[in-house]
């Protein structure tokens, strides 16, 4: 490749979108061409500038949007939802169909005229529980039996210093069923990585969470503790195993904050196996600054 071809390829090279062969040719050219390396540096600065200029919505906007969305969807279920619910009802065992249908008509008739909350069937002194009907069946006495799953929601307010609040946030940060909840909990905890429990939770999330957004958020929270032995011990594993390039980029930035000789072997190994161009270049430049060879022999 000549300089013109390399300059044209740089944009895709930085995004790791060149075919492997072309990428090798670009790297070989860059190795011997200071002018193209300067051009690469300029493009990297441009990338960082784009990152810095990212427009971020104000923090409470997402809560406002959610509130509006949930009000709209709860108030008026879509026709497909209604259709789907009706379809589900047809899956009741055929022997129970006539009785089930009768029971449902009765339930519908009653619920339209006698709200559950007012009927005394549900006791909700402060806040009505969220109830899901699990099954219905005719009662031998001629009535109807209905099984409800109830969830009662309670809002707790308090400072992050409050031990109970922290404990609940740590619980939420481990809720495997809800990645959004984990992200939000870790976001709230991330400035408290000096606390042992919080740091352990962040480390656990950064190394094991299935969701890359959660891993990235947890790692951001550990940034201020990059020199802590537990955090440093976790970074090589993240660099070797995490399949998300943004997580690896953050991990390499944290690892090279403290340049001791122990990381040289790891960095040399990364040059050969890392697929992200930015991480590879960062590793190369750190090795060069540490006067270590780029490859292993």
């Amino acid at each position: 490749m000549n300089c013109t071809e390399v300059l044209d390829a740089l944009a895709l090279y930085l995004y790791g979108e060149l075919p492997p062969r072309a990428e090798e040719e670009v790297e070989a050219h860059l190795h011997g061409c200071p002018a193209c390396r300067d051009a690469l540096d300029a493009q990297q600065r441009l990338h960082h500038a784009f990152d810095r200029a990212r427009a971020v919505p104000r923090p409470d906007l997402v809560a406002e949007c959610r509130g509006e969305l949930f009000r709209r969807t709860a108030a008026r279920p879509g026709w497909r939802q209604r259709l789907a619910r009706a379809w589900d009802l047809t899956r009741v065992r055929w022997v129970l169909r006539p009785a089930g249908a009768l029971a449902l008509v009765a339930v519908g008739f009653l619920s339209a005229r006698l709200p559950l909350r007012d009927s005394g069937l549900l006791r909700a002194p402060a806040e009505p529980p969220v109830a899901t009907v699990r099954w219905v069946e005719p009662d031998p006495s001629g009535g109807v039996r209905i099984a409800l799953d109830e969830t009662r929601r309670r809002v707790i307010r308090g400072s992050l210093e409050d031990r109970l609040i922290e404990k609940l946030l740590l619980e939420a940060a481990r809720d495997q069923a809800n990645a959004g909840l984990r992200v939000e909990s870790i976001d709230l905890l991330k400035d408290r990585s000096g606390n042992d429990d919080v740091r352990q939770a962040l480390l656990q999330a950064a190394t094991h969470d299935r969701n890359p957004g959660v891993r990235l958020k947890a790692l951001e929270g550990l940034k201020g503790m990059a020199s802590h032995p537990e955090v440093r011990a976790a970074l090589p594993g993240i660099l070797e195993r995490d399949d998300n390039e943004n997580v690896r980029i953050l991990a390499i930035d944290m690892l090279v904050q403290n340049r001791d000789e122990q990381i040289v072997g790891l960095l040399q190994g990364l040059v050969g196996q890392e697929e992200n161009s930015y991480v590879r270049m960062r590793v190369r430049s750190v090795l060069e600054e540490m006067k270590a060879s780029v490859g292993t022999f």
Partner: protein
Amino acid sequence: MAQEAAAVIPARLAPRVDEHELIRAVQRGDQNAFEALVRSYDQNVLGMAFNLLRCEEDARDVYQEAFLRVYRHIHSFRFDCSFHTWLYRIVTNLCLDCLRKRKIRKEEPAVVETAEGPLDRTYSVEEERAAADPERNLCNAQLAGRIHLALAALTPRERTVFELRHYQGLRLKAIGEMLNTSEEAAKNCLFRATQKMRTVLGDFS
């Protein structure tokens, strides 16, 4: 084609068992499951729409319309691509429509010219953080303003491809599938976008 798209989505976006169960619960009409599903994705959706459109009202509209479409059409989702791909296809198309309408209406730009250079009116979050350092705040707003002008020089399609690749980290093959085009076309689009922005911004230090 959708299956191909799913194949190029990184492992982080691969459908997960718990998410499948959540989607099935939404398909059964479970409102709590719908809310949990929304919470898993909505910060990213809102962040992408806001960064791409740089207008709170438009980002709000895209958020509402995207998740309402999910709510209305979740029963037609057959797991032949990841939910992430399906959702982002909806969001991307809504954003593209919004950008195209803006081009036609030639709306007031988010960047205003000042004596210190272009300033980005949407640059608000960093403002709060940098409130204690007005000089740095001004520099950041100027930088954001210049970059906003560079982004405004792109066509809606180029802008969208750049957003998906640079800010959302999606591979070009997946972006091509999302926009119903080829990987090569997405690559050309990204190339044109970066060339245009380099021309507008010049050397950056």
